[in-house]
C-alpha cells in the first residue's frame, strides 16, 4: 500500500499518513490552522480546497517567521 509522505518544514520532520481527500481535512487531522500554513503538492503551491492522493509529495510550510 502506498502511504503519503508529508514534510513539515516547521519541525523539519517527515511523517507518513494513509490519506486521500481534501487538503483542509489533512490539516484538521494534523491539527494545523490553514491560515498559518501553505500547502505544496509536487512542488506546486495549492489551495486547501485541492484533492490530495496517497501518491502526492506534500510539504506544509509555516507562514509565521517571527524573526
Amino acid at each position, binding site marked *: 500500500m502506498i502511504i503519503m509522505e508529508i514534510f513539515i518544514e516547521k519541525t523539519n520532520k517527515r511523517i507518513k499518513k494513509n490519506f486521500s481527500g481534501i487538503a483542509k481535512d489533512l490539516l484538521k487531522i494534523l491539527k494545523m490552522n490553514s491560515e498559518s500554513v501553505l500547502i505544496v503538492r509536487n512542488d506546486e503551491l495549492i489551495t486547501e*480546497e485541492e484533492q490530495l492522493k496517497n501518491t502526492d509529495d506534500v510539504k506544509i510550510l509555516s507562514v*509565521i517567521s517571527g*524573526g
Partner: protein
Amino acid sequence: MNCLKCDENAVFLEPTLCKEHFISYFEKKVKKTIKDFKLVKKTDRIIVACSGGKDSTTILYLLKKIHGTVEALAIDEGIKGYRNKTLVDLKRFCEENKIKLTIYSFKESFGKTLDLMLKKEKNPCTICGTFRRYLLNKHARGYDKIATGHNLDDESQAIIMNLTKANTELLLRSVPITEKKKGFVQRIKPLYFCSEKEVAAYALLKKFSIHFTECPYVNKRIEMMCEKN
C-alpha cells in the same frame, strides 16, 4: 478551484487567484501602499533591514524592482540554528541580485550573542528588539529611509498589544511611514497591507531561496505574554 480572472487553477484562496494573477495582485498592492503613503521619493537612498526571512527578502526584491537601487542591512543576533541559516539565504540572495549587504552582530557590538544574553534574562523579544533596533538605526544613518518587512499580521498584533497596554505612543507608530524625528532614520513598511500568508505565498511563487522557519524564541515570548496577563 479556478482563478477568478482566468481558467487556471487557483494557488491562493482569498483572493482566489492563479500564480500569475496572484503575483500581479500582490505587487500592485505593495506599489499602491508606496504611492498612497508617499513611502519613497525618486532621490531617496534606501536601506532594507533584512533577516533573510520571507518578509524582508520580499521587500528587498520589490524595492529593487520598483525603486532601482537599494542596499541591505542585517543584524546577526546570534541565535544558533536559526539566524545563521537565514543569513546564508540572505547572502546568496544579495549576491544573485547584486545588492550590497552589510551585517553587524550582537557579539561584535555588545560582546555577547542573544543566546548568551538570555541565560540571565527572561524576555527574549524585548531584549532582542531593543538591541536590534538600536543597531539598525545606528547603521542606517546617512540613508533617507529604512524599509522593514512588517506585514499586516505584525502590525495588527502590535496594535492589539499596545491597545491592551494603553500605550498610545507606540500605537501611533503602527503606520506605513514613521514621522521624521531627529536622530532617527524614517522607517517605511511597504508590506503594511499584505497578510503574512500572502507574503509567504509570493516568496514561494517567486522561488526565493529561503527557509520557512520560526524563531526558536517565539514560544518563550508567548509564554511570557500569558504569564503577564
